[in-house]
């Protein structure tokens, strides 16, 4: 009998405690105060990191034997399925938004452009890491060719995959967009990029966490603001799960 009473008391006490915690974690004021940390992290990391400082690169001996896939592994749209069946022969990457010369590129044209190869570490926001070798076109080259307007603040990546009908997208600022290691990769570990990893191209932005590495990129858009674009958070996970837009840690 005593055990039950004590147990009930314990459950009751922890219930009260949990309710109190929920009141704190759910409070809009608390949430607003907490965003100060994110702002401080963004400013602090930008302050101590040179805009061209390179993410560590590894040797082939360091490559993960198996590279874990995450997010969507097979876009469901009929358009993508058709491209895939056709080995992406008719696929084109669109580059537009606030640019003087919008243009599009086929996979063959992308592969013929100047390339960069890098062996880098992919860090998932969940905590795991995998090392892989990526080859692709530096994003800066494409942006230069498109002549991005000086008022542009962000580059947005629109993707072919979706979560229950909501399309995946991501965004980075101009510092990361023009970084020498920011590439549109079509080759992974010296093989054509597998569908599970984002074929035909995925973004590699090596100083950010995994959710910034947009897969199945279809369209690149230069914008002045992220407001008004989908949920306004600058990315699918930012909009739907409250992930921090700045993914430097």
């Amino acid at each position, binding site marked *: 009998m005593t055990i039950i009473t004590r147990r009930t008391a314990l459950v009751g006490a*922890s219930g009260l*405690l*949990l309710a109190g*915690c*929920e009141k704190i*974690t*759910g409070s809009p004021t608390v*949430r607003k*105060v*907490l*965003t*100060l*940390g*994110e702002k*401080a*992290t963004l400013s602090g*990391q930008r302050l*101590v*990191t*040179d805009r061209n*400082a*390179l*993410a*560590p690169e*590894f040797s082939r001996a*360091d490559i*993960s*034997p*198996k*590279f*874990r896939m995450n997010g969507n592994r097979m876009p469901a749209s009929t358009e993508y399925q058709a491209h895939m069946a056709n080995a992406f022969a008719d696929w084109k990457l669109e580059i537009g938004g606030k640019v003087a010369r919008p243009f599009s590129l086929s996979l063959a044209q992308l592969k013929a452009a100047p390339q960069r190869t890098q062996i880098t*570490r992919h*860090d*998932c*926001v*969940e*905590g*795991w*890491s*995998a*090392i892989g070798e990526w080859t692709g076109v530096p994003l800066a080259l494409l942006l230069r060719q498109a002549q991005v307007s000086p008022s542009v603040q962000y580059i947005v990546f629109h993707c072919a995959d979706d979560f229950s009908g909501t399309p995946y997208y991501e965004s980075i600022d101009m510092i990361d967009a023009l970084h020498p290691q920011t590439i549109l990769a079509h080759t992974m570990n010296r093989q054509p990029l597998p569908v599970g990893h984002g074929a035909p191209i995925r973004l590699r932005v*090596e*100083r*950010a*966490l995994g959710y910034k590495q947009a897969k199945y990129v279809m369209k690149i858009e230069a914008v002045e603001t992220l407001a008004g674009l989908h949920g306004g958070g600058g990315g699918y*996970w930012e909009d739907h*799960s*409250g*992930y*921090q837009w700045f993914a*430097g*840690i």
Partner: protein
Amino acid sequence: MEAASAIITSQVDAPAQDRALVYRTRLPVRIWHWVNAITIFAMLMSGATIFNAHPRLYWGKYGATFETPWLEIGRQGQQGFLRLGSLQIDTTGFLGLTEHSTRAFPPLVTIPNYYSLAEGRQWHFFFAWVLVLSIVVFVIYAIFSRHLSHDLSLSREERKLSHLWHDIKEHARLRFPTGEAAKAYNPLQKIAYLGVIFVLIPLVVLTGMTMSPMLNAAFPWMLDIFGGRQSARSIHFLCATGFLAFIFIHLLMVLLAGPINELRSIITGWYRLPAARKDRA
């Protein structure tokens, strides 16, 4: 436990008014203590949420689902487990599987009290700034106010192994300093505080920073120091375990040394010197 309460009783035996009330803990130390106490709890609990996203730890530069973890908390059917190398411990009801959760750490010990990696990270990185700023300000204060050299540093006498061994034996017998000697921290206490201030907190901050891909670009040598990002993550978790051990011993010592007197001293600064033990008087 009986021996412990016997000693506490003998310590409070003498009439309280006969024993001096001394001002032992200055205001900045008290403020830092409480800011740090809240911060460490927020960090441990939001850290538990982050750990729940991938409750496996590895050594080296990389590590994901295909690699073998040295530590894993998980669930197999109706059993929660903690696996340390080849050793598997049944933790059903505590870790891996509880009545209300199938996550590694149950909601009672996480912030928020449901699984949200995004919110856990938001709490963790907010309090990371509080942790860093408060320890920097505290260490500067401790140096210039001589709190460090007067109260925390071990004297030449205290650094002798024979002295430390004596102190360890006294602690094991739950015989704490009384009278004048109780005005100062004892050697083991000093070592514990110095360990937290100069080893545990810097190590947890540095390994945390080493997990940041952006800071890896700024300070790549940090990866070399800790042996890769996954090793840094493992050391970060071990530091958290170290904090947990410190908190456990710290609170146990407070209870054994007289919780009311100890609490008064860390809130108001005033401490009543314990009476000399009868067996010595």
